[in-house]
Each structure stands twice: as structure tokens, then as C-alpha cells.
């Protein structure tokens, strides 16, 4: 595997520890990513040299803090190739961004009889806001299904997206299936019928290069914490003219122009959508994470993860005791792998792996409708990032084998 990428382990102090007396193998990256030292160092530096509120003061610290905060916005703008920095709104995370959209664009543009189209593989954060909007507005929420291979069904998408469709909102990458969805094609389908396309990029932006202009998406939401940034910061990208037409989501300091006792007017983008004190340090830390990823190169990151999947997925698929959900072809699979060990509840499996130092998720992964669609109650999930190594994969495979043996023979042997 690409040594340049593998060499980053030293940047992540958290990985250098034992868990339950075993070397920590962190495979829960789809839940949240670990942070390189440079990110926490940039937080410390901000707090201990420049900390002040932004856009508010004329003193030196306020000016430095403002410059650092807006520089972070520019870094994000370049990272996703937005047209202008004003199209980059800082949020609390993906969930915040998507709720903001449902409460502003959705509230203003969805009317009785309109249709909102999502997919059956959506995370609850890109599902419930639209479901509840549809209920409030007496609109219809439609789900695009999957192909037999576990990919988004484009034929079904073309059928579900109709002249009544106003919003199409789709995950760029699934947090369960390991699929990367054809956003550009979906954007075309949406735009052909005059609908907008919103993309939940939470699981894509940490792992692949994203160009919002090339994808031609109207909105793109993501979280900082999944791309090595701090918690509590995220981004909502939106096309300028759409953001401009939207009402503010929250009201308060810094988003206003004039405030009178009985009415108010709003300031320009992006600040119109950033009411109150934002997560200033969080934005700056996200900017550092963006620098870190850019430095390594998103192509290298993607390539490294592909190598892991190429190595691991066929082994899992070949194992009769293991059921893998999502595409079986490694080329169609991101570094998120949902699976079950037959006869062993994923919760028990996760506890066993944890005893071996291997951290995986078990549960419904905030995707209950997908679980129902797949006909499972829950799955285990291993998810990889650029600091994971071949050694990590081998530890994981060993732990799986031992867990199988334990539940088949372990305690019964002790009889």
C-alpha cells in the first residue's frame, strides 16, 4: 500500500494505545475520525494567542480571530471548489445543515402535492427532516430503491423523479452499504424536471475529492468531525442564488442589518445564516484538517482506502459464515463495510472484537428503513480511513476468526 499515506500513523497519538490489553485497531471511522496533532495544535494556538469573538470588535485579537475564521472558510471553498466563499456556511454538522435546508428552502418551496425524493439508504439525518416536512406540507416522500447488487437503482430514480418533484436529497456515499452514488446523473435527473438536488456528503468528503461545481449540486452538507476536524463544526454549501432567496434559519447576533422593535432586515451571505457566536475554533480546526488532507492529497487517500477494500472485501465475501451487505465488487465499494457473522448478534460480535482491541460499530447505523429493506435488525460495520494499515486489516480478520471460534466452541469447550 501507498507508504506515503501509511506513514501518517505517528500524527495520531490516539492510535498509539492499548485497549483491553490489545493494540487499538480503530475501525469506526464512519462514526467519527481521529484527529491529527496539527488539528489540536491549531485549536490550542487559537485559544492561547488569538481568541476573541469575530466580526464584532475593532481590537487586534478580534481582527486576528476574524481573519483566521474567514481564512478557514476560504480553505473549505477551495477544498470543494465552490464558486465563492460566501457559498460556504458554517454549521454544527451534517444534521444541522440538512435541518436548516428543510426549515428554510423546504419550508418555502414545498407545497401540498409536491414530491420529495430520497433513497432507501439514507441516514436518518437525511431522511426524517424530509419526512417531517412532507407530513407538515401534505407532500409526498418517495424512496429510490436498490439494485440486486446493492447499488442505487438509477432506473428507479428516473421513474421516481417526476414533474412534481421539487427536492431530490441523496447521500453521496452510504454509511452502511459502502456505495458511492452517481450524484452527477441524479443532479441531471433533478434539474431536468426543475427540482434541486441536495447532497448529504458526510461519508464522501473525508474520502474522495469533491467538486461541487463539477457535480452541479445545489446544496452539499458535511461534518467536520468525520474528516479529522473538531466536533461541533460542519459546512453547508449552497449555490449563491438559492441561498440568497432563502429566509434565515436562526435569528440573533451578526446576521442582521437593521433591527427595529417590530421588524428586522438581514445581512449578506454567508453571515445571514450564521446567527450568534459560531464555533470559531471549530472552523479554524476544520481549516487545518482541510490543509492536512490537501497536503496528502485526496487521490492518495482514496487510493489507500481502495487498496484496503481490495484486500479485505474478497476475504469477507468468500467466508460462508459472513454475510456482507452492499456491493461485493471491491471497485464499487468504499471503505465502509457492513456485515454479519451468521448466528451471532452484531452486538455480541462488537463486544468480542473490542476485547481484541478492534473497534467496530454494531446496530442500525441510523438507517432503520434500510435495515428493514435489507431484512436485518442490525449489522456490524467496519470502516477505514487513511491511517488504517494492512496490519489493522489482519488484526480484524484474526479477531473475526477467534470470535467465530469462541461462540461456536469457546465456552462450550469449558463445559
Amino acid at each position, binding site marked *: 500500500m501507498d507508504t506515503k499515506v501509511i506513514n501518517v500513523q505517528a500524527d495520531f497519538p490516539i492510535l498509539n494505545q492499548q485497549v483491553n*490489553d*490489545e493494540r487499538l485497531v480503530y475501525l469506526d471511522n464512519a462514526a467519527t475520525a481521529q484527529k491529527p496533532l496539527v488539528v489540536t495544535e491549531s485549536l490550542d494556538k487559537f485559544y492561547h494567542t488569538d481568541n476573541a469573538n469575530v466580526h464584532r470588535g475593532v481590537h487586534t485579537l478580534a481582527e486576528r480571530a476574524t481573519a483566521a475564521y474567514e481564512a478557514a472558510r476560504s480553505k473549505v471553498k477551495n477544498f470543494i471548489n465552490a464558486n465563492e466563499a460566501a457559498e460556504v456556511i458554517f454549521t454544527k454538522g451534517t444534521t444541522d445543515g440538512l435541518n436548516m435546508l428543510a426549515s428554510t428552502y423546504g419550508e418555502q418551496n414545498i407545497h401540498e402535492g409536491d414530491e420529495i425524493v430520497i433513497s432507501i439508504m439514507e441516514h436518518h439525518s437525511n431522511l426524517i427532516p424530509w419526512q417531517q416536512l412532507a407530513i407538515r406540507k401534505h407532500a409526498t416522500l418517495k424512496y429510490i430503491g436498490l439494485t440486486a447488487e446493492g447499488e442505487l437503482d438509477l432506473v428507479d430514480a428516473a421513474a421516481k423523479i417526476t414533474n412534481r418533484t421539487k427536492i431530490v436529497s441523496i447521500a453521496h456515499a452510504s454509511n452502511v452499504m459502502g456505495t458511492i452514488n452517481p450524484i452527477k446523473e441524479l443532479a441531471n435527473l433533478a434539474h431536468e424536471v426543475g427540482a434541486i438536488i441536495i447532497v448529504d456528503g458526510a461519508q464522501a468528503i473525508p474520502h474522495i475529492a469533491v467538486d461541487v461545481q463539477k457535480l452541479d449540486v445545489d446544496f452539499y452538507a458535511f461534518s467536520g468531525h468525520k474528516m479529522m476536524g473538531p466536533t461541533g463544526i460542519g459546512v453547508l454549501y449552497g449555490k449563491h442564488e438559492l441561498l440568497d432567496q432563502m429566509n434565515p434559519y436562526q435569528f440573533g447576533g451578526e446576521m442582521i442589518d437593521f433591527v427595529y422593535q417590530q421588524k428586522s432586515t438581514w445581512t449578506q451571505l454567508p453571515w445571514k445564516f450564521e446567527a450568534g457566536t459560531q464555533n470559531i475554533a471549530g472552523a479554524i480546526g476544520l481549516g487545518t484538517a482541510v490543509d492536512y488532507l490537501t497536503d496528502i492529497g485526496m487521490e492518495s487517500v482514496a487510493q489507500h482506502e481502495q487498496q484496503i477494500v481490495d484486500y479485505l472485501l474478497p476475504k469477507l465475501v468468500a467466508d460462508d459464515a459472513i454475510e456482507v451487505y452492499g456491493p461485493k465488487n471491491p471497485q464499487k465499494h468504499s471503505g465502509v463495510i457492513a456485515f454479519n457473522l451468521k448466528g451471532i448478534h452484531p452486538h455480541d460480535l462488537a*463486544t468480542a472484537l473490542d476485547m481484541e482491541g478492534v473497534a467496530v460499530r454494531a*446496530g442500525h447505523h441510523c438507517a432503520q428503513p434500510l435495515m428493514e429493506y435489507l431484512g436485518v435488525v442490525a449489522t456490524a460495520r467496519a470502516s477505514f480511513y487513511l491511517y488504517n494499515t494492512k496490519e489493522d486489516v489482519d488484526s480484524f480478520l484474526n479477531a473475526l476468526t477467534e470470535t467465530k471460534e469462541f461462540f461456536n466452541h469457546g465456552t462450550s469447550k469449558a463445559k
Partner: protein
Amino acid sequence: MGLAKLNNLYREVILDHSDHPHHKGQLAVDDVSNEITLKNPTCGDVINLEIKLSTDDIIENIGFTGDGCTISQSSASMMTDAVLGKSKDDALKMAKTFSDMVMGKQHAQADLDELDDAAILSSIVSFPARIKCATLAWWALQRALLNQNESGKDNVKSS
């Protein structure tokens, strides 16, 4: 190797209960006096619990359905064994004892003995992420006996 510690949790009796759960199934519709469906929001485990309380508040029959991990299934099985034939008040006391036990609080040995097989789940203290799996059944018992709905509010004033 790391899995040795697992033996502390997955004891034979626990695996037996989860492989062959007791009182798994629904009661006759007319027999059900108290009922609840509860969920472990972390993992999606669900338990449906049905109870037949006699006129003098004795648990005359009990049954559960639902899916879940080894711990939640065996805990439900052991719970139903332990409370069948007990009075409502005693059963509530046992639920309290159980939830204290898994949180690591001290209890009189006599109280723990009351719990029967279920007392073996005290080992869950070393697996904090799994405490919820163990308590789900007992929590359901408590809610069902007190006629509360899922969020702990009285069923009557469901607004």
C-alpha cells in the same frame, strides 16, 4: 488472548438462556393485563413483554417476543423465570435490585439471591457498553407493571 475475558460475560447459563429462552412467545390475547414494547435505541433491539396479573396483583403468566443480542435475550429469559409467581411489588423490588446490581451498587445477598439466574449478569459491570442490553427486559417489566408507556409517562394521560 483478549477473548478469555469474554468468558466472564458469556457464561454457560447465559448462553443456554439465549439459545433456549424461557417464556418466549405471546400470551393469549385475553390473558394480557399489562403490556409494553421497548427498544434499545443504540442498537435497535426490541422487546415486547406481556404480563397476566391476577386480581390480587400476582404475576400469573408472562411472555416476551423480540429480537436482540445474547445478553438481552438471556436477560429477558432469566427475568421471566425470576418474576413468575411473584407479586407486583416484589417484582418491582427485584427490578430495582437488578438495575442497582448492574450499575455496580452494593446489595444485600438476600436481594441478589431473589434474582435467581439473573444475578449472574452482575458480570456486566465490566462491559459498560452492554449494561443497556441487560436492563432492557427489567426496564420493560417495570414500565409494564406501572402501566407506563415507553417514555415513562403514565399511559392514561397520553397527549
